[in-house]
């Protein structure tokens, strides 16, 4: 497992974190000038999580960002131009100004699923993405993020449970930033470690210092490799702090000052800069060069966005266009396995459960049920027994209802 990064990669981590922060500083300024459409949700202090986790993915993997994951979008190839036009509601934005914030996506090239504002709903969806990719024979991992607050939603639990039962290649990064809007984590979850949520679903739950980008990267890389190898989903709790209010309008006066000071001293970018210096991985000139490059890129991107047109007034008929897909998209899955495996006679199975331990609690037999992979008798000659990568599933309630 490749857990060490080259010097270039380590500098690239710095570049993305600094870009993430500098870009959001620009957004903040634009918002004060009244140029942002919709809410602005700062990821100040959480850049190491967005960047470090997304950096562990391979080309072709899928992500679904949340609003505080601009860093992940940047790592996965989104440009500052796209982020600015999107947040400024310009006609040429990735959503043509139909949505705002980080609610953008790209199915065909960058494999980014657009989030919705309701928390937790990405988890079952990304479980499906992971299952779909596996079904097509692709070795792809799906990654998404959730907050401490969002981990109380039903969708979080239904999604993680289903991912676990399906052993779907899903990595779920839980950013515990201590606050769900104004509500502290202790008022939301009766757990010290939210990673313990994973135990309820038989899923590994890792805890990582979310303000240490290398630690986040290593944890994410292990999780991604494990998911890709077919061992099922992993939950990573990254402990961090939301250094601003819930959104731009919120001064977050409910946060104790000392708590803010505590976390300010653990700023992920300042820490990483020190680490690079101590490790002799860069010089002051390197930092200056990267920072200057970022400022140039942002100057150019802001200028591009500011000179981009706002959408004009539209008739109702134009507003309605695009609600439905009527021939505008061709849907063609990217098969990386033989379709014949999924069609009769090859796909034929004996449709019955075999319950190894009869469900008795005192038994020490393996608590797996086995999905029959042998073909039914009628088709046996044509279709030999087939072993699939996930022929075993964790026992579910269905097993207790099994009839055969």
């Amino acid at each position, binding site marked *: 497992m490749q857990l060490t990064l080259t010097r270039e990669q380590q500098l690239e981590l710095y570049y993305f974190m600094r870009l993430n922060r500098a870009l959001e500083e620009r957004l903040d300024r634009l918002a004060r000038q009244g140029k942002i459409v919709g809410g602005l949700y700062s990821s100040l202090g959480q850049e190491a999580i967005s960047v470090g986790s997304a950096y562990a993915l391979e080309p072709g993997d899928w992500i679904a960002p949340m609003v505080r994951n601009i860093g992940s979008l940047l790592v996965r190839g989104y440009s500052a131009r796209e982020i600015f036009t999107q947040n400024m509601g310009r006609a040429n934005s990735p959503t043509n100004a139909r949505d705002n914030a980080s609610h953008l996506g790209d199915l065909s090239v960058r494999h980014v699923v657009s989030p919705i504002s309701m928390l937790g709903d990405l988890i*079952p*969806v990304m479980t499906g993405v*992971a299952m*779909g990719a596996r079904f097509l024979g692709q070795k792809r991992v799906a990654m998404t993020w959730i907050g401490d607050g969002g981990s109380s939603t039903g*969708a979080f639990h*239904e999604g993680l449970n289903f991912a676990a039962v399906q052993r779907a290649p899903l990595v779920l990064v839980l950013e515990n930033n201590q606050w769900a809007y104004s509500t502290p984590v202790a008022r939301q979850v009766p757990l010290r470690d939210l990673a313990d949520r994973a135990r309820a679903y038989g899923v590994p739950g890792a805890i990582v210092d979310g303000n240490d980008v290398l630690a986040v990267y290593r944890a994410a890389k292990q999780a991604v490799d494990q998911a890709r190898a077919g061992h099922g989903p992993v939950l990573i709790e990254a402990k961090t702090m939301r250094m601003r209010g819930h959104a731009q309008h919120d001064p977050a006066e409910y946060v104790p000052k000392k708590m803010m000071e505590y976390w300010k001293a653990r700023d992920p970018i300042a820490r990483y800069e020190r680490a690079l210096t101590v490790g002799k991985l860069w010089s002051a000139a390197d930092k200056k060069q990267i920072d200057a490059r970022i400022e140039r890129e942002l100057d150019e991107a802001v200028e591009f966005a500011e000179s981009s047109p706002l959408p004009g007034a539209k008739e109702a008929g134009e507003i309605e266009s695009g609600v439905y897909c009527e021939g505008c998209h061709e849907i063609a899955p990217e098969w990386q396995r033989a379709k014949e495996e999924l069609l009769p006679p090859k796909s034929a199975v004996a449709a019955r459960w075999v319950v190894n331990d009869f469900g008795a609690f005192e038994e020490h037999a393996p608590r797996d049920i086995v999905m029959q992979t042998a073909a039914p008798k009628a088709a046996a000659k044509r279709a030999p027994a087939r072993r*699939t990568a996930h022929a075993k599933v964790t026992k579910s309630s269905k097993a207790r209802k*099994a009839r055969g």
Partner: protein
Amino acid sequence: MAQTTYLEAIRQALDEEMARDPSVVLLGEDIGVYGGAFGATQGLLARYGWERVVDTPISETAIVGAAIGMSYTGLRPVAEMQFMDFIACCFEQLANFAAKSHYRWGAPVPIVVRGPSGGGVHAGPFHSANPEMYFVHTPGLKVVCPATAYDAKGLLKSAIRDNNPVLFFEHKFLYRRVKEDLPAEDYSVPLGQAAVRRAGRDLTIVSYAAMVQASLEAAASLADDGIEAEVLDLRTLVPLDRETILASVRKTNKLLVVHEDTRTGGMAGEIAALVCSEAFDDLDGPIVRVTAPDAPVPSAPALEEGFLPNAAGIADAARRLAQA
């Protein structure tokens, strides 16, 4: 050849689409080994295997969420709700995720969510509802309500081949009660085309799902009294075939709308508004609704009988309208 039931027509549509296209996968509770609570997926696991027929936890949000995610990879998942009443559990995934996806960021969601709806089998308030109107009111979703075995098969095929999220409301009262000879060859019924089930000149009865059968029964009894009712079967509520409705009203000049769903906010109100704005001058009488009352579906047979519209009630309303 034995006639094919509405339920078997659905099973055949799933089977034939799965055989035609390996990207069609099924997700749902008890759909695999058990073959579905009503048997709509009987035998499909044995034919297509564990990867294409996925038994899920009791977890509608996970079922529909995963179907959406699978569709993003290019697959065409068909999710079963064991009863359509349970679709309330995954309202969020449908109304906020699936419905808005293509509009917001150009990502089509080619999924079908299908299952049994409707009353008439004394199944009580949570196994009898007609929840279609929540979704008719949600732009981005299509809503299909077949009334015949032929349509159940042909519309389901169109729904699976459609690039949008389609909610397919089967009517459980019809599952084994309606049957007909189906063509041996592949066919589909396009979404958005109403069918004239019976031609007539005196009034138009617009309906869908099980109430089409009741309306036809009513039309037969009206004919005995010399009243010729035209019966339209909407087939799909979204898209709605406005032209066929308007053309019929322009011919008969009277409109009765019948549905099993409850009255307030039901499809009849929408159709009445359409006809009033587009064909007001053609009307020779009030637009009349025959619907269920604004109540949950009660359980006991006598109570449910009082709740559900029936052929006699439709015929009474039609007679009064014809004479108006």
